[in-house]
């Protein structure tokens, strides 16, 4: 990540975001920025507040405090669909799509709300939808109804519909969960290509091998708060991270 990319307008800025359920602080005062083309990994044990943090950014849950900016524009309080049209796309932990529609109908619908779409032209939207399917290698499944797709294809379709909205920031919730090794490698290669095109990516993941290969920086969360924010190498040497993951002795590591 070159120097000037850091000083340019961050694609996504999160400042002091918290989420409280009664007395429980699911997310506690988390802040970070992601520059265009940068990949930020989010790690941490179960119950650390990762998905809840995502939900506050995308609007599926209301943040109790804190501000969020997408390419400089504040998005706190805006509706979910507005945030998407401004360039924020997300995937879900479980592959989900409009299951009675075909793959192409799914990406067409998403493409019809894509960022920077000029004029109402159905053929333009259909073409954008087909392009998104090609990006993830699903063009051969264009006419298949989503519920009939195998699980890996459903995961790729969910990614395709996110990309069809031409996002500037892509939030991924465990994209590698349940994938076998070469499926992981394909997905990592695809994400590397996308970031090359200037897409900012924030990725929650447990599969460390993939996260470490992909992320420029990693935010480790524990009890809803930031435990560590830095490069993957520094993460592996950080005493606190190793303790939370491995416990005191940390095996042969620290």
């Amino acid at each position, binding site marked *: 990540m070159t120097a000037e990319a850091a000083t340019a307008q961050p694609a996504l800025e999160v400042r002091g975001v918290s989420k409280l359920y*009664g*007395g429980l602080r699911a997310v506690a005062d988390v802040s970070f920025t992601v520059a265009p083309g940068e990949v930020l990994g989010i790690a941490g*044990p*179960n*119950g*650390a507040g990762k998905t809840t943090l995502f939900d506050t950014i995308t609007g599926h849950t209301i943040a109790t405090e804190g501000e969020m900016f997408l390419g400089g524009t504040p998005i706190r309080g805006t509706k979910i669909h507005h945030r998407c049209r401004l360039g924020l796309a997300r995937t879900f932990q*479980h*592959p989900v799509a409009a299951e009675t529609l075909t793959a192409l109908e799914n990406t067409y619908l998403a493409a019809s709300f894509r960022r920077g779409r000029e004029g109402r032209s159905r053929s333009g939207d259909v073409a954008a939808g087909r392009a998104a399917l090609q990006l993830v290698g699903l063009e051969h499944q264009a006419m298949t109804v989503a519920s009939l797709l*195998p*699980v890996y294809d459903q995961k790729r379709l969910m990614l395709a519909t996110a990309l069809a909205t031409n996002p500037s920031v892509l939030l991924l919730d*465990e994209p590698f*969960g*349940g994938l076998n090794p070469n499926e992981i490698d394909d997905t990592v290669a695809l994400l590397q290509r996308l970031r090359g095109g200037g897409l900012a990516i924030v990725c929650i993941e*447990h*599969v*460390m*091998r*993939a*996260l*470490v290969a992909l992320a420029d920086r990693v935010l480790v969360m524990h*009890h809803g708060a930031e435990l560590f924010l830095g490069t993957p*190498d520094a993460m*592996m*040497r950080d005493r606190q991270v*190793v303790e*939370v*993951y*491995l*416990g*005191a*002795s*940390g*095996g*042969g*590591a*620290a």
Partner: protein
Amino acid sequence: MSDLLLDVRGLRAGYDRAVVIHDLDLAVEPAKTAVVIGPNGHGKTTMLRAIAGLLQPWAGEVTLDGRRVDGEPAERIAGLGVVHVMQGDGLFAGMTVEENLLMGSFLGSSWRGRREALRRVYQALPLVEEKRAQKARTLSGGERRLVGLGRGMMRPARLMLIDEPSLGLAPVAIEAVYAALADLRKESEAAVLLIEENFTHVGGIADVVHVLEAGAIIRSGSYAELSTDETIVQTYLGALPEAGR
């Protein structure tokens, strides 16, 4: 072979066609404590839910005391002496602590027997007795784990399945939970199958440790052997840290 309390062979399970557990074998001897560790997202809870009957396994055999139980509903498996302390806490939020504990002995014998079990749990876990009249939803994370554990102790068990007791707890709360676990093991001769993401606390209670990665057991051994084993670090941190070598 038949002297095994729990014998899992070729277990295969998952959600909505997403396979999470691939061909898993696991054995637990009577009165012994087996611990299964592994990073999140690799199927620990799914394995436990399949054994407990909350999830229908797609393939494989689960034998308890020599009797096939895979495919049986959770309520019948519970009847065979299996106590399942669930992830998070699985408490009944709208009911008081004492009501939760009484539910633990739903399969218990008489009214008097349940009162006796209640007295025993209060003696073992004074904090739980202190909070007995409070609604479960008002408890903190650590308190909920202790009540969950206490509820598990309310009826005699052949096998206890315990799901990540230290999940999301502050260190001091983890100490209290593991201390209670250690006492429990001393006085009851139930076998324990415990899954945990955090590796260090299990030292005191684990007779054997298994490492679960990507839905299958990849290594087994005593706590001492595994704590210096490099594959553990590999599984957890994805790559061997240069500095550590």
